[in-house]
């Protein structure tokens, strides 16, 4: 047992591991590729064989691997009878399909891919069949959807393949998602996601109030997968896949997953009214409907596909009956269906392969041209039709037997009639399949002249056909044991053994069967007129409906997205603002406010004047903003008044900073505005303006109220510590500066990095612009002809020459005093840059740039590095980043002065600010030269002293003559 339980996960893993191989082996040739695909399958089959005896003896092989115990999702495997049956089918048929596909696929088809997908699919199916954890089962379940998607869409150049694959994935994927919910509910009722645990909680589950939702959700998964009405429509379209895929997916594996699931969950979910009516009804409808449609399909594969639908319906119905016997019959029929359906698919593939058509109306008389194929197909088809002594007969008989004593919607008769009709239709399409394909006169208009294919292609169907006969003749011997253990696993009843035999005597079932056979033959005889009626009857085309539905959803989604995410940032912001106001208000209303603790400070008249200026300027910006230049000037007024407020309210540092920053900002904006339109067109309709106005006023009022509320209330803050420790611990009397460079130096470090990045960004963007289409726009730039000819006026140049050194000195002063009085590296950097900007404005870009001593880039770099290294320097002393040190020194003849590492840090700030501001303006002003501005070589338009020299020259010339 120990070894066996180790083998189980290995068996499941083998196909997945093997899936890596074909892609690699394809270079070694098609045979090698096929062989190496077969090997893992074969190995898995061998492992299964090793474990089989335990199971056949009534045991269960289990393996438990912890995967995600927190969730209850574990790689727990369990091989019981049902699992053994399915695993055997999956691997056995898989092996045959691998063989068959080797010959079926043409040289143009990427065979490596095919085998990879096939093995992935095989692994997933195998996983489903032996999962002992429903979450694990879900994993494999979804994997089958995915891998079958790849298989169905294998011929990706065919639109039918692509559509079929998408439809299959959509439908089964949707079912799978529903099933996730169902399984989660189930697990929660049972308290575990382990199947073996769940199986023991059947009564509890059925009694739970969540039973019905769980049931419906799980059945959605099973029905979609097994193509039950009304989800049956995807299956026929999956037939666009290569025939080996169809044979595999639609006989033995994929579609049986749903049936498997119902069988697996049977002990837990079955036996209730809900189960009975939902499952058996859906199954019955599917059985009849599938058979009916199959009868009128001309495409061999489509016919088989609908017959599959029909048989799946049959199986579903049986499981739905909820009786152990019915379940046992279902198990038996699963085996039988596998054998004949896989055979038929392969035969259809052979026909297609040989004649290059699958259209039944273009076929006929193939029996003499490809006798072996015909023989195999006839055997399988007769079995499907339920003709003795083949295996299909037996399970059909047993099915009808179950039907005969099932009480359904008020009696047994309704179901007997409907089931018999189903069987009749089934017989009819089976006869049609063989009759219209292989019998009748030989034609001379086959698209391609057919003959029997190579043995390799025939081997697989032939083997299965033999099985069809053998099971029919010796059911107990061949199928009996496995049916026993499998049905025991479904019903949980190990005591009862089914006695599979051909002859049960004259039973109601036999009568129904005879009626069905005769009726079927009669239907086939009437096929031509019926076909005409069928074709002229309007009926809903499921595929069209589905595609229309998807298209509608798609269009609706697109519409929704286009309306909501239409790139209208203005609206996004409006929503943002409104949401903030609403949520903020909602938050507020959950609390209250303490009574005010502070009195109002008086408002001197001058403050009132400043307030008027501020508010009028603000209002004026709103009303006059379309004249951009004017609006910009008005922001200067606001900046001025805000600075005034800072001065009045004891914040000199803020005033300094605000005023200098504003100036640089205005300069930047002016440089940009030069290239932007000078006016903003009036575009918003009035209603929009009113709306925005309302939002804006609401937001303003909210913020004002918020501020007003806290302004009236005291709170004790941490800054007492800063005031107390600024001088002692930080070495400065300007507490704000000490906070900036010491207490919260890390913020400042971040802040200069922001500036540094801004500088870099502007530079990088400018490069991108000047190398992109924007440069074309710029090159076509025309300057207004009436602009002033006064480019670098003499007076300005001279004044700047005097002022710049003074401004630099002021910058130095502001830098040095910052630690103790308002000022510091940041303002100093701005003052320096304003001094330089003055020079740029006076003497022009070209001349000034030529005299530049420092690279702005490197200035930023050095700034950030100096600040960083100053901070890191503390590590040398074993102290944390940015720990400062300071001391007071006296070097005659200087005054006593203070040196603090914080000043070095501030130097970093200074350098970064200077570098960033200059790099920004430098980058921006490069635009002008692209727009055709010349580079000036002289500092002023015309040095008046040259007038004198020029005159002298003229005089010299005159003298010379």
């Amino acid at each position, binding site marked *: 047992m120990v070894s066996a339980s180790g083998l189980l996960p290995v068996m499941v893993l083998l196909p997945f591991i093997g899936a890596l191989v074909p892609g690699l082996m394809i270079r070694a040739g098609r045979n090698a590729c096929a062989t190496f695909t077969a090997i893992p399958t074969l190995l898995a089959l061998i492992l299964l064989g090793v474990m089989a005896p335990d199971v056949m003896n009534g045991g269960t092989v289990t393996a438990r691997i912890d995967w995600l115990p927190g969730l209850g999702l574990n790689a727990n495997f369990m091989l019981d009878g049902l699992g053994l049956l399915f695993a055997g089918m999956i691997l056995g048929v898989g092996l045959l399909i691998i063989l068959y596909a080797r010959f079926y696929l043409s040289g143009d088809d990427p065979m490596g891919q095919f085998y990879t997908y096939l093995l992935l699919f095989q692994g997933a199916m195998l996983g489903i069949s032996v999962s002992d954890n429903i979450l694990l089962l879900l994993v494999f379940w979804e994997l089958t959807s995915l891998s079958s998607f790849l298989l169905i869409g294998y011929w990706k150049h065919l639109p039918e393949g692509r559509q079929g694959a998408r439809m299959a994935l959509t439908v089964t994927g949707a079912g799978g998602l529903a099933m996730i919910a169902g399984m989660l509910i189930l697990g929660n009722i049972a308290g575990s996601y382990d199947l073996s645990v769940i199986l023991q909680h059947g009564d509890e589950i059925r009694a739970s109030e969540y039973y019905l939702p769980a049931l419906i959700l799980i059945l959605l998964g099973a029905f979609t997968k097994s193509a039950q009405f009304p989800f049956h429509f995807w299956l026929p379209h999956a037939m666009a896949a290569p025939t080996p895929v169809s044979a595999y997916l639609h006989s033995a594996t994929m579609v049986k997953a749903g049936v498997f699931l119902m069988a697996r969950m049977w002990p837990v979910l079955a036996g209730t009214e809900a189960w009975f009516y939902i499952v058996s009804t859906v199954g019955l409808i599917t059985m009849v409907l599938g058979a009916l449609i199959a009868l009128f399909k001309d495409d061999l594969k489509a016919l088989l596909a609908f017959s599959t639908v029909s048989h799946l319906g049959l199986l579903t119905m049986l499981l739905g009956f909820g009786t152990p016997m019915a379940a046992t019959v279902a198990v038996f029929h699963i085996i039988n269906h596998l054998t004949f359906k896989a055979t038929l698919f392969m035969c259809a593939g052979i026909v297609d392969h040989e004649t290059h058509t699958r259209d039944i109306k273009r076929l006929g008389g193939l029996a003499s041209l490809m006798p072996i194929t015909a023989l195999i197909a006839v055997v399988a088809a007769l079995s499907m039709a339920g003709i003795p002594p083949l295996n299909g007969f037996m399970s059909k008989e047993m099915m009808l037997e179950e039907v005969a004593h099932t009480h359904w919607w008020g009696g047994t008769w309704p179901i007997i009639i409907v089931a018999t009709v189903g069987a009749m239709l089934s017989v009819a399409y089976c006869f049609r399949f063989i009759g219209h394909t292989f019998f009748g006169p030989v034609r001379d208009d086959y698209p391609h002249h057919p003959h029997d294919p190579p043995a390799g292609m025939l081997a697989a169907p032939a083997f299965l056909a033999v099985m069809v006969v053998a099971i029919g003749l010796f059911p107990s011997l061949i199928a009996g044991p496995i049916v026993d253990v499998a049905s025991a696993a479904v019903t949980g009843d190990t005591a009862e053994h089914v006695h599979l035999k051909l002859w049960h005597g004259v039973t109601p079932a036999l009568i129904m069967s005879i009626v069905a056979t005769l009726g079927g033959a009669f239907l086939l005889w009437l096929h031509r007129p019926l076909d005409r009626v069928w074709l002229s009857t309007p009926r809903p085309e499921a595929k069209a409906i589905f595609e229309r539905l998807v298209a509608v959803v798609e269009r609706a989604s697109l519409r929704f997205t286009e309306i909501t995410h239409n790139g209208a940032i203005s609206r996004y912001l409006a929503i943002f603002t409104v949401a903030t106001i609403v949520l903020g208000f909602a938050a507020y209303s959950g609390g209250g406010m303490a009574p005010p603790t502070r009195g109002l400070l008086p408002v001197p008249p001058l403050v009132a004047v400043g307030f008027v200026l501020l508010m009028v300027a603000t209002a004026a910006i709103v009303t006059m903003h379309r004249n951009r230049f004017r609006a910009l000037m008005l922001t200067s007024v606001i900046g001025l008044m805000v600075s005034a407020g800072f001065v009045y309210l004891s914040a000199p540092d803020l005033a300094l900073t605000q005023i200098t920053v504003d100036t640089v900002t205005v300069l930047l904006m002016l440089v*940009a505005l030069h290239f932007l339109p000078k006016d903003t067109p009036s575009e918003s309709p009035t209603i929009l303006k009113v709306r925005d106005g309302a939002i804006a006023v609401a937001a*303003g009022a909210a913020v004002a109220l918020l501020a007003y509320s806290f302004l009236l209330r005291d709170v004790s803050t941490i800054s007492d510590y800063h005031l107390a420790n600024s001088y002692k611990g930080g070495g400065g009397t300007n507490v704000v500066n000490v906070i900036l460079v010491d207490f919260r130096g890390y913020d400042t470090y971040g802040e200069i990095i922001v500036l540094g990045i801004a500088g870099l960004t502007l530079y990088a963007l400018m490069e991108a612009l000047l190398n992109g289409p924007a440069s074309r726009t710029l090159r076509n730039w025309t300057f207004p002809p009436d602009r002033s000819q006064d480019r670098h006026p003499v007076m300005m140049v001279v004044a700047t020459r005097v002022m710049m050194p003074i401004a630099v000195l002021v910058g130095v002063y502001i830098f040095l005093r910052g630690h103790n009085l308002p000022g510091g590296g940041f303002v100093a950097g701005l003052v320096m840059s304003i001094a330089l900007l003055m020079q740029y404005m006076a003497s022009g870009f070209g001349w000034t740039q030529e005299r530049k001593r420092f690279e702005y880039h490197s200035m930023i770099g050095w700034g950030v590095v100096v600040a960083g290294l100053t901070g890191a320097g503390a590590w040398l002393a074993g102290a944390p980043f940015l720990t400062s040190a300071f001391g007071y020194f006296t070097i005659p003849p200087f005054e006593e002065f203070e040196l603090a590492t914080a000043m070095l840090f501030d130097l970093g700030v200074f350098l970064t600010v200077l570098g960033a501001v200059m790099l920004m303006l430098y980058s921006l002003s490069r635009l002008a030269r692209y727009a055709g501005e010349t580079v000036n070589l002289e500092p002023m338009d015309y040095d008046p002293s040259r007038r004198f020299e020029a005159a002298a020259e003229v005089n010299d010339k005159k003298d010379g003559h």
Partner: protein
Amino acid sequence: MELVVATSIGGLTAAGIYLILRLRAFPVILGVTLLSYATNVFVFASGRLAVGLPPVLTDDATAYTDPLPQALVLTAIVISFGMTAVLVLIALGAFLENGNDRVNVEDERAGEGDA
């Protein structure tokens, strides 16, 4: 005074928001500028208002205004300066490349996908 400050904040916020809801980059930039004035004053006000008590230590002063919000505002001013600069230039770049300075993406539905 408190009322004056609160109203100023409110006025600046309202104007700022009205402008950032406009359709062109330049008024939006102006709006952002006004908004950052508003937020700076707001944060500043969180230290409450004081007249004539600058937080520079002197021997004769008995009380100081709260220095911490001032430091925060300084940081915020610098950051918003950098941000404004980047905003202005991106707006300019977008204008030069697009030929207009609209902030909203125009409806230029390019071709239909064929899924």
